[in-house]
């Protein structure tokens, strides 16, 4: 509340903690309330897909681009999708410009895993010719304003951009030596939409969707990616906090419930392109 920096004042730390002990958050939320989310898709004309997400004051823009390449040798009949995250310096005075920091790399990999193991993209349908040609999707996440919980915001941005994307469909040329456009467009083949749910922890108090002041003083966090079929598709424990086994299981159940509520509320399938 008093400027943003790595050094949180002692009184703010005390204030947030005192509130948490009473089950309240500094912005008035309950321990397990998620902030308001707003979604805008198709905002970047030259991107195949795009989404502009606001989770409270955290703002993330995700763009989808594609390229044609060859499948990896260990998955010869599958296309490829890769995530990148850029912490734009104007998103926070704590972000310095320059090459990707470890935090931006961790974020990209978390979102990547949530998508990869969440039965999200149908990689087989992204393969054009086995062992030779496939789509490579680039899921590029740009953090525009940082006010806590980049993971959940980026997760929504990525799936909103993916589900609303339109890519040109490809076919082999007659002599089968190359790929060309077959004149049509298609959506990205998506099965399920994974949702990320992150919890922060200070001492032994756990809360959902940390906002910036909480994130700056928390001891650690844990994020769950939840599939539409109510399964956990990935987990990331970050920060030096320690967790009990039953704590984690309990939180995973809360995450599933919250992910379902969020999914219903956001109704992401409304963004599927009508072709």
């Amino acid at each position, binding site marked *: 509340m008093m400027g943003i920096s790595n050094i949180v004042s002692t009184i703010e730390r005390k204030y947030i903690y005192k509130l948490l002990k009473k089950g309240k958050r500094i912005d008035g939320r309950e321990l397990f309330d998620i902030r308001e989310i707003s979604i805008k898709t198709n*905002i970047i004309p*030259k991107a195949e897909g795009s989404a502009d997400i606001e989770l409270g004051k955290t703002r993330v823009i995700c763009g989808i681009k*594609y390229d044609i390449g060859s499948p990896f040798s260990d998955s010869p009949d599958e296309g490829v999708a890769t995530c990148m995250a850029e912490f*734009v310096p*104007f998103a926070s005075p704590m972000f310095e410009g320059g*090459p990707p920091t470890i935090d931006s790399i961790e974020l990209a990999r978390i979102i990547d895993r949530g998508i990869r193991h969440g039965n999200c993209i149908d990689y087989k349908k992204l393969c054009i010719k086995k062992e030779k040609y496939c789509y490579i999707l680039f899921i590029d996440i740009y953090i525009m304003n940082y006010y806590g919980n980049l993971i959940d915001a980026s997760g929504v941005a990525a799936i909103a951009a993916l589900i609303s994307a339109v890519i040109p469909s490809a076919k082999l040329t007659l002599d089968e030596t190359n790929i060309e456009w077959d004149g049509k467009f298609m959506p990205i083949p998506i099965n399920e939409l994974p949702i990320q749910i992150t919890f922060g922890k200070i001492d032994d108090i756990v809360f959902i969707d940390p906002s910036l002041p909480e994130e700056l003083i928390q001891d650690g966090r844990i994020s769950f990616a939840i599939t539409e079929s109510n399964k956990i598709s990935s987990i990331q424990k970050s920060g030096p906090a320690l967790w009990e086994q039953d704590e984690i299981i309990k939180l995973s159940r809360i995450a599933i419930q919250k992910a379902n509520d969020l999914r219903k509320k956001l109704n992401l399938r409304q963004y599927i392109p009508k072709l």
Partner: protein
Amino acid sequence: MPILLPEKKHEKLILENGKRLDGRDLDEIRPFKCEIGVLSNTDGSAYVEHGGNKIFAGVYGPREVHPKHLGLPDRGVLKVYYRMATFSVHERASPAPNRRALEISKIIEDAITPTLFLELYPDSAIEVYVMVIAASGGTRCASTTAVSLALADAGIPMKTLVAGLAAGKANGKIILDCSDEEDKAGEADIPCVIQMKDEKICLLQFDGDMTPEELDTAISLVKKGAKQIFQKMTEAIHQKFENIQKETELEIEKMIQQQDIDSINNIESTIENETEMKNEYDNIDINKKDFDFNNIDNKKNKLEEFDEEEEDFEQ
């Protein structure tokens, strides 16, 4: 491998009816809109949409330079970092800045520096980050415009705002505000940014094939276009504060309706009485008067009770 749909190449940029590919006249500018104060963690920010360009600019500063030796002892340093998002262009760009981005950063710095009073901030830096999320011809000019707005939004004193656009030449004719296609396929590209207060040129580049007379025409066209952009910029600034004012007028009406009239009658509200904003800005190089025009009664302000420094803060 090149992607499936290459960017369209156009031979004819000016159609039979004298209009351009997007229907514009030769001297017509693309739609422009802007907003200030869009990034809450910055000291100042702006968002600009110009044609297909979508650009954010965020400012930090003036603030201490770290490491100290990068600062200057007699004036502040302005640093601009211009970057483009990977998805802002047709073929995915690399996220790392390329030489073009670094060059553009420098020419924006050179364009904006004359509009600032950098001598006010020795050993300090003003840092501006520009992110182009969608690009479509004339990005460096629209970016400079955004930087200018963001600095004004940060409350940094400025001599003037600036606005710019690119002129060009298509099928032999001088055109104003090049679109993407015109930028790429035209016979000249002239990004140019001017100062609002005196029309002096603060950014100028040229690539192409023109006589001095054609260049003269092109720059005059740019000035014409820039004036239209300035108009939009000032409207946006007014609107931001007038919207707040309108909302408060509604509130006042509600208040009157709810019969809370006694408090309204008791407190005087002429314009002079309401404006008590003391300007902390102070500089010997600029005309200033020590005008103490308010009576902030600081005694009312005293902290009643708090802990002395000797005490521990353990509970």
